[in-house]
């Protein structure tokens, strides 16, 4: 690098291109933008719109061909009790997972942001990054091992003489099942586990931006720890939690692998879409189903943006 501190002015093609670019910053901007915009704008958004358009077509009940005439009948099918149940179940699961993830993530993020220093801070960061980036399927698989009837949870429960508690949990109507890996509890635990790091990171980032002297000022002015939390820390941490909830909510809405591997046979949105486009060949209804998470996420994102969550990302 050192021998290029002052470079000789170049002539030739490069110089001319460079000068041309320098005089036309807008053209340069367009040149930079064009390839990624073409990829995302045409390939991605194009496919997305093509898919969404299908939601307004319907399928011929007898031949199974798609009728390319605009209709709202496919969208209306979403409100059939069977289909609506799937949507409701998925949204409730996503909400429950988000709340649980926030409750578990907050203390960890607070500790890592306020009390961990130097090497410890780096360690905490790695402790979150490793599970975040380790293989999704490996993580799901590990819970299959844990939740199995002959697995570690049953073993621990037996050792602690708590088998009755586990049995009572599994006997819960609707939510229970023959074993944890075939119940709603299982699906819930696995979702929380898999998306938890997505909640921790933005929460911790938001908490780290809370100036320590603000907290000290609050206690100097006579605020109890509870009041300091409610009036100083919480409002500043909220954008981080909301940023995290974007991930936990959206990822749960669209996931179809977890309920397929761990859970009762009840369908979730992702599975419905997967089966409809695959074996059932009903692309219009599959497309109508995908409209639901897109709509939910757009509403969610616009609320999040208003609450300043994007700055915490």
């Amino acid at each position: 690098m050192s021998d290029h501190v002052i470079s000789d002015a170049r002539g030739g093609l490069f110089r001319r291109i460079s000068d041309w670019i320098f005089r036309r910053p807008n053209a340069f901007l367009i040149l930079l933008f064009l390839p990624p915009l073409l990829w995302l704008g045409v390939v991605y958004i194009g496919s997305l719109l093509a898919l969404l358009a299908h939601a307004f077509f319907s399928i011929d009940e007898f031949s199974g061909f798609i009728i390319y005439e605009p209709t709202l009948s496919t969208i209306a099918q979403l409100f059939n009790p069977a289909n609506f149940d799937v949507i409701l179940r998925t949204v409730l699961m996503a909400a429950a997972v988000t709340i649980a993830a926030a409750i578990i993530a907050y203390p960890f993020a607070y500790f890592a942001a306020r009390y961990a220093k130097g090497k410890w801070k780096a360690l905490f960061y790695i402790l979150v990054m490793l599970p975040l980036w380790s293989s999704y399927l490996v993580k799901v698989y590990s819970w299959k091992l844990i939740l199995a009837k002959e697995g570690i949870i049953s073993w621990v429960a037996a050792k602690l003489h708590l088998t009755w508690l586990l049995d009572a949990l599994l006997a819960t109507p609707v939510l229970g099942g023959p074993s944890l890996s075939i119940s709603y509890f299982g699906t819930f635990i696995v979702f929380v586990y898999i998306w938890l790091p997505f909640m921790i990171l933005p929460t911790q980032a938001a908490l780290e931006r809370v100036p320590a002297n603000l907290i000290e000022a609050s206690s100097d002015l006579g605020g109890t720890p509870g009041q300091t939390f409610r009036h100083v820390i919480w409002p500043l941490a909220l954008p981080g939690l909301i940023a995290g909830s974007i991930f936990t909510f959206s990822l749960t809405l669209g996931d179809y692998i977890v309920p397929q591997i761990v859970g009762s046979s009840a369908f979730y949105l992702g599975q419905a879409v997967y089966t409809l486009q695959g074996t059932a060949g009903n692309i219009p209804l599959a497309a109508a189903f995908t409209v639901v998470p897109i709509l939910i996420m757009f509403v969610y994102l616009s609320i999040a943006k208003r609450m300043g969550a994007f700055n915490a990302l």
Partner: protein
Amino acid sequence: MRSNLEPRAPWGLKLAALLCVLFLHVPLLLIFLYAFTTEEKSYQFPPPAYTTKWFAVVWERQDIWDAIWLSVKIASIATAVALVLGTLAAAALWKSRFIGKDYISLLFILPIALPGIITGIALRSAFNVADIPFSMWTIILGHATFCIVVVFNNALARFRRLSGSMIEASMDLGADGFQTFRYVVLPQIGSALLAGGMLAFALSFDEVIVTTFTAGTGVDAKTLPIWMLDELIRPRQRPVTNVVAIFVMCVTFIPILAAYYLTRDAEHTAGAGK
């Protein structure tokens, strides 16, 4: 200045943080334990006895090697595409102001903000409409779409720390745009790009949802995650899956740790003074 009277963490908070760490890591450790079990029909805990024979079994299995090789190919090409497009997008968004900029940034995070299944089914129906046969390349196309986001985020974060005055100084000293990029910009964003590339590689190597939609049915379709998914749904030799799981973890951990060390000192980037 920070006060030295930093209060000690209350024990309740420590306990909650510790439990959270255990929750995050014990499941991963169990995978290691189960790779040595002699029990291949169930997930019995504790394992009845221990053996290392499964590692040898995996070594002999050609289908696993094929899956690994396919995943490596796909991840490499998708990462290369993402590096170019993600950097271009970050360079364009950095410092420029124009109407609709917010929407463009939203467009770049959309493939990650929307559930993967939507990306997957949208691409699948587009391939069907355009009569594109499913192959390794359709998988790469899908992977590159969300890998761009990772590179873009990493590059943009570093660009923001890059001081604009350094670029002006370079130009003032007579360097043209290409020289400035080569000798001033690239050395500063290089490690962020490497980190973004590694994360993109790990992400693609591990992707399963978009892959199930963009893959065909032949040998070209069985990436390592798809192979694992088949094993999860229809288990054959369970410990074999564990050995493969350990392998996958190691392959993804190394780039993640490397990416962390590359971006760790980012705050000290030259010229980033307040």
